[in-house]
């Protein structure tokens, strides 16, 4: 069995600040991490491999620095990694990104046919949840989004049964390989890196693929050119004009509590009536 896991290196957005004057993202010193949702995808792929054997290839498209994320993936126990990197990919939106990744997976499959592709639920920077479905459609893979558990995988029958989150409940769905799974967060816990794998990761030269290696000829489908969407404006959210009105500045807890109820009753009579605070 061959599993490809797509991961993205993202800035740790908890540490991102916006420059107060220029309105630009201040990336300096912000550490890059594996997109947190993708870590669940890596772990699930490794668990399947532990159970059923096979190999796990981790793929990322990004700048040369993204090789750090792949080194990390090797340390967790991935067998192979590929860094898809080419200036021609710059400026890709989700449609162009899913094209490049799909093409690369097709190429990977020429050597070792791919049974399953994993992605995270979404990224924390792009946050679109579109790249997974995009890859699946382009490769004609069965699409399984928001998967919380893999109930069964039968390599003889080439069937897979998963639980996926849907509105108001969990759908148990059965389909055939090859399939693409977007993994829900919290579905598993990433393992500790093993000693051997850590050594392997440290020694590794990360294989880099450019667009030619990935078999991409049509440059109108990648990068800026292949992106239907453009950002026409970036701005900071506008602050509310008025600050909160202070309640109970000089009062004790009980005075404050009553002041809150008074202000609701007098300033928001309809709400107060619904709450039963006032009766008419």
């Amino acid at each position: 069995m061959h599993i490809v896991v797509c991961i993205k290196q993202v800035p740790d957005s908890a540490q991102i600040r916006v420059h107060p004057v220029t309105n630009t993202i201040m990336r300096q010193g912000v550490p890059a991490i594996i997109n947190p949702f993708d870590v669940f995808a890596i772990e699930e792929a490794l668990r399947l491999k532990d159970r059923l054997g096979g190999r796990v290839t981790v793929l990322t498209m990004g700048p040369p620095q993204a090789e750090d994320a792949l080194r990390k993936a090797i340390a967790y126990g991935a067998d192979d990694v590929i860094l898809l990197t080419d200036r021609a990919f710059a400026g890709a939106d989700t449609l162009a990104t899913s094209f490049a990744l799909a093409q690369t997976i097709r190429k990977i499959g020429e050597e070792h046919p791919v049974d399953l592709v994993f992605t995270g639920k979404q990224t924390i920077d792009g946050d679109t949840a579109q790249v997974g479905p995009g890859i699946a459609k382009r490769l004609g893979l069965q699409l399984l989004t928001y998967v919380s558990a893999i109930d069964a995988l039968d390599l003889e029958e080439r069937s897979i049964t998963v639980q996926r989150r849907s509105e108001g409940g969990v759908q148990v769905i059965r389909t055939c390989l090859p399939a693409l799974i977007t993994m829900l967060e919290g579905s598993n816990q990433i393992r500790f890196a093993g000693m051997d794998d850590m050594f392997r990761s440290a020694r590794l030269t990360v294989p880099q693929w450019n667009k030619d290696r990935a078999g991409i000829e049509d440059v109108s489908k990648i990068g800026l050119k292949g992106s239907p969407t453009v950002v026409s404006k970036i701005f900071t959210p506008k602050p509310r004009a008025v600050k909160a009105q202070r309640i109970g500045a000089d009062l004790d807890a009980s005075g404050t509590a009553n002041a809150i109820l008074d202000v609701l009753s007098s300033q928001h009579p309809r709400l107060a009536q619904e709450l039963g605070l006032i009766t008419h």
Partner: protein
Amino acid sequence: MSENTAAPVKPKGKKRLELDPRLAAYKGIWVFVEMERGQVHQVSWELLGEGRKLADILNVELGAVILGGSSDELSAAARSAFTYGADVAYIVADPILTDYRNEPYTKAMTDLVNRYQPEILLLGATTLGRDLAGSVATTLLTGLTADCTELAIDPDNRGLLATRPTFGGSLLCTIQTLNYRPQMATIRPRVMAMPDAVPERSGRVISENLQMQEDDIIAKVLEFIPDEAQEQAQLAYADIIVAGGRGMGKTENFRLIWDLAAVLGAEVGGSRPVTHAGWLPADRQIGQSGKTVRPKLYIAAGISGAIQHRVGMEASDVIIAINNDPNAPIFDFATYGIVGDAVQILPVLTDALRSRLAVNRRAG
């Protein structure tokens, strides 16, 4: 390749875009009406309300796309869609569409789009809507902007201006889909206001067949396990919410939040650190990576008001914030602010409320 949201800002200049004549033929705004187990998701009505405004600006028709297994249910949904502003309902009824599955829904939707050519297609950013939107956009090879918080029409070129938070909400960006149609966007539940129904409004129904047989579809739904009735979803549509943050200090103190909520008949929510710490279940998280809410009353106790939390709740009518730091950002946008210890104030507030309600009940 830095961001997945969209390509970098194109050089400023004339925003007029020469739309390919083939694409200029795309007319009208469509909203996907999401049905699961016969129940229309309220986000669909919210989007019809918003779609109506855009359709009036563009002077085009508003269409509702309704897919499902039972034609009775679909007809009922179409009648409701008209009352919320739709002019036309595009219906595909087929037993294959009873449970949501990506393949047949994608097929039904893309066939409709290719046939009737809407210029804008809006879907709710639910699990179902996001699954469908992503695969429809790729199949049609067009642009899709996820999780928008604001929609507008560019007066220069009649294009859709879709605004969404980026970088965890610290920034907003407006995204345009240039020479591609339809322009697609998903919008989260509760971001757009619920429109008022106009009962006497009605419209045309256009029915199409699904060009697919059950045997064509590989995926089979074996089972659907509904969530516990009290859990889930209720939060997004709650009228009153009491929310606690890290400032509540420890999990035991959340009893104070639940107590107040019980007396108010409110739902309970929290900030991300609180759900991460297990003080509340994960589906009670409010904010950018949790739920969007717009209750009539939002009480925030021990929540700093970080942008990622704020984007999920600032549409609330009245926000009361209790925080012991007078400089907490939440005071910049709350309606009322109490500087003090939430752990001390909450139980007193609960008691005061309880006794007023008791007095009123006796009086009334």
